């Protein structure tokens, strides 16, 4: 069985470098290192398996009923400045959070910003269950709507220009040139006005300065929705039959 383990081994022979004079001191004479891959060539320990089993059954029961269908596999590495999975996440937030926000404040969410790092797994082709939502969004983060002036939105845009990552966005449209200088920025298809008020949905992690998104904290006001992003995803998956996310022109670079 051992021979099946993919092993990359090496030996480091180190100089005798311990200069301490304590007579009890042992001397390091050799170091060997191995990286052991854990794979299906090793049988699982039966006691451990049996211990996990009831936990696994309970989780399974809760997670594995089919909610929707994914025609493709969507991963966060699939696009340069916007991705199908990121667009889906941001669009879900906009669609699911807006009715709650409107009912509480009479205002409408203008845009969404989440973080690229927050997409923790791809959505695989095939059936979508609550488990899919747990894999993509394992964190307990809840949605927060942040009231921001246009000037602060410009800082948010600068952040996106500088990070050059496909952070999930919705409601905002950005076009940059080869140097990531801004060509066009639109919210609801209109130019951003410095003193206008915009409502930005994000999660509590980012609102509190996560991923260095410090602009959120300097906002006018915030409205915690007490609605977890994962639950927003699950609610959305229950509504739709087949998801159809695409890469589009919400954040693009032109030469």
């Amino acid at each position, binding site marked *: 069985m051992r021979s099946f383990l993919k092993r990359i081994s090496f030996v480091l*022979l180190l100089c005798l470098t311990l200069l301490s004079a304590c007579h009890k001191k*042992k001397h390091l004479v050799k170091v060997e290192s191995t990286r052991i891959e854990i794979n299906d060539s*090793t049988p699982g320990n039966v*006691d451990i398996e049996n211990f996990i089993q009831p936990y696994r059954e309970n989780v399974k029961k809760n997670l594995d009923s089919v909610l929707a269908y994914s025609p493709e596999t969507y991963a966060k590495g699939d696009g340069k400045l916007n991705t199908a999975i990121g667009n889906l996440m941001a669009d879900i937030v906009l669609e699911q959070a807006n009715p709650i926000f409107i009912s509480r404040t009479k205002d409408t969410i203008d845009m969404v910003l989440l973080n690229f790092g927050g997409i923790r797994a791809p959505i695989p082709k095939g059936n979508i269950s609550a488990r899919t939502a747990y894999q993509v969004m394992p964190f*307990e983060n809840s949605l927060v709507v942040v009231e921001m002036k246009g000037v602060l939105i410009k800082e948010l845009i600068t952040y996106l220009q500088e990070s050059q990552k496909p952070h999930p966005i919705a409601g905002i449209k950005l076009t940059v040139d080869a140097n990531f200088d801004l060509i066009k920025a639109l919210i609801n298809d209109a130019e951003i006005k410095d003193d206008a008020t915009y409502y930005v949905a994000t999660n509590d992690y980012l609102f509190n300065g996560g991923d260095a998104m410090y602009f959120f904290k300097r906002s006018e006001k915030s409205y915690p929705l007490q609605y977890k992003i994962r639950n927003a995803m699950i609610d959305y998956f229950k509504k739709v039959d087949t998801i159809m996310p695409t890469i589009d022109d919400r954040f693009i670079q032109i030469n």
Partner: protein
Amino acid sequence: MKRRTFVKQTAAASLVTLGGVGLSSFSVSQAKKITILHTNDVHSHIDPFGPDHGRNANKGGVARRATIIENIRKENPNTILLDAGDIFQGTPYFNFYGGELEFKLMSMLKYDVATIGNHDFDNGIEGLHAQLPNAQFKFVSANYDFTNTVMDTWVKPYEILIKDGIKIGVFGLGIQLEGLVTKELYKETKYLNPIEIAQDMSNILKTEEQCDLVICLSHLGYDYKSQPDKMSDLHLARNTEDIDLIIGGHTHTFLDKPTVVKNKKDKDVLVNQVGCYGLYLGRIDFYFDHQIDKTYQGNTQIV
């Protein structure tokens, strides 16, 4: 210092004298072997990845890790098992049970010591504290000051393990929490400068506690190429002394072998990390000898 040199010479001399009588086979057979096994960023990955997972298909799984660890312990009882943090968060097991199963399984696998990663605060510092009764292993963190939190007194800066007469000091270092973890989660936990703390720790462990091996369990991250000034394991290794091995985490860096870095005193420090999700188990064997006049060349060879 002079006294120490004298003691050393005396010790060497007595060994040589004894050597004449019949210690010719001393070198290999008498070497003591300490096996260090380590994981990091397992992120609640208890079950193996399924066959459809692409890159990680059929890899990982705690039950298989248990089998491998058990076999290694049979081969060498002088084995210690360490984890460099981010035990929590990543599968529904965490969302449903809050880390209970992770800690119980690590206890069954007989982990010795772990440090705390940023995601271990994901259910708040109270959430971490609440799971401590399920952990039959120790937590170390030298640069998180938990004084004004529920974790106060539950985490020591370091632990000392003794295996076959070899004294092993293990201290922990955590990453800066501000900007990474919501303040409401980590509460009054204070982050202290890792370099200064590591210097203190390694000095205590090497000089005062006379440890034969000093290990730093770090969740600082291996290296940040785009932010060269950001604190990392490579930084730590270069700017400290008396650390023999840094077992790292956070950056999910897959190293197939430890990186050898020269420390402040131009001595070798090993830095290792085995990616994430329990896909790999790291193993490093340290051989110790009593002989003083051995002269090994610092070279690397593949076995």
